[in-house]
């Protein structure tokens, strides 16, 4: 018995090492997909409505980014947890119910604890429900994968989306107001007001950047930049 046990033990250890490497590879791939290659903001072009509408300042962008990130991770985790118990026929209504409840909770919490930010983000908090990234990841990834992977995928997709939101918000805020993190205290509390940076002061700000057309143009430039970097990478 003992003699037989040894090779078997060895085998499991071996396979464990292998799965660890595989696991790392999977996480790496998920991160790569969410943050860059399949970025929901600038490659899949999902959730453009809030992306363009609320990114006029970094603070607004950060607020929406955190809310979306939270909903995405939570919905991916929950969907993955229940994936074996939900029949295929009714999976979509259930996913929608989960996402809608999560968003409503986030909305109530933001209303309670970040009141001014809640006012300035307005309708775009409840609109997270309709953000295609969330139902998209629930259906395409979380409903087919384990909880850990699903949560990690949600985190990476959320971070990818947040990165685009923040980049867009920072560019627009600098161009339009010459500041960064203006109004951050509405999100993080009064202690954080030192974060507000005034880069330059001007009477005649570049208003276009703060308006929706400016958001489209800058978004286009960010996508172009990403494509240019990819193209350069391929050439080398």
């Amino acid at each position: 018995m003992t003699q037989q046990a040894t090779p078997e033990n060895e085998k499991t250890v071996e396979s464990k090492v292998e799965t660890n490497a595989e696991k790392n590879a999977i996480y790496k791939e998920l991160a790569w997909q969410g943050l860059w290659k399949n970025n929901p903001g600038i490659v899949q072009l999902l959730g453009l409505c809030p992306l363009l509408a609320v990114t006029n300042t970094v603070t607004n962008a950060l607020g929406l980014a955190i809310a979306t990130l939270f909903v995405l991770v939570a919905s991916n985790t929950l969907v993955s947890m229940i994936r074996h118990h939900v029949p295929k026929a009714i999976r979509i209504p259930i996913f929608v119910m989960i996402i809608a409840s999560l968003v409503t909770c986030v909305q109530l919490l933001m209303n309670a604890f970040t009141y001014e930010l809640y006012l300035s983000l307005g309708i775009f908090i409840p609109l997270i429900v309709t953000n295609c990234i969330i139902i998209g990841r629930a259906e395409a990834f979380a409903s087919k994968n384990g909880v850990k992977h699903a949560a990690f995928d949600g985190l990476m997709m959320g971070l990818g989306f947040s990165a685009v939101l923040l980049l867009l918000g920072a560019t627009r805020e600098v161009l339009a107001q010459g500041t960064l993190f203006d109004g951050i205290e509405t999100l993080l509390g009064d202690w954080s007001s030192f974060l507000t940076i005034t880069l330059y002061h001007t009477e005649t700000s570049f208003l276009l950047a703060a308006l929706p057309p400016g958001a489209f143009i800058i978004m286009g430039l960010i996508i172009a930049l990403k494509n240019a970097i990819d193209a350069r990478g391929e050439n080398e």
Partner: protein
Amino acid sequence: MILSAISRNGFLLAAFAIICTAAVATVNQLTKPVIAKQEQMALLKTINQLIPKDSYDNDIFASCFIINDDTLLGKDRSQQVFVAKKAGKPVALMLETSTFKGYAGEIKLAVGIFADGKVAGVRVIRHSETPGLGDKIQTNKSDWIYSFNNKHYQKDQSARWEVKKNGGDIDAFTGATITPRAITLAVKDTLIYFNKNSDTLFNHPANCGEFE
């Protein structure tokens, strides 16, 4: 078979609906008092910008009542009034008013008026004037709105409540006359309303409801 599948799915859906609703209801219950407090604080912040906090000692939310005046306070608009009193004596009022004379739609204002008829201050609650031109009525864009502080209205000098371009006293800001003029006239109308009703306004029964 089909029936059992349907009922199974139905039960599952119902179960999820119950769980989700319960979660939302719990969060709602927990956040409700905090949200109410936040809304009150936000309103108080506006009021205290207009009427100094230490100048009154009554519960200003409890004093709120609703008024209407189609010609002076905006057509078809119900406006809230808050009364500030100290030791039972009237100190100041904050009236909401609306004007449609701006460039784009309604401009909603909060006008603070001291008991002697002087303007305590004016703030824009919401507007949709042209960014870069008309939005200088916001305090974070320009100091213009402070120019009403301590002004008062006298019937025989009514013409002075106009922008300078039309022969009045109020400076318009660069690039726009319509928006400043709309605000000037709205403040003037509010003062006229105040002068007309000053005896009843301070003793009006509160009727705004819970806390508003």
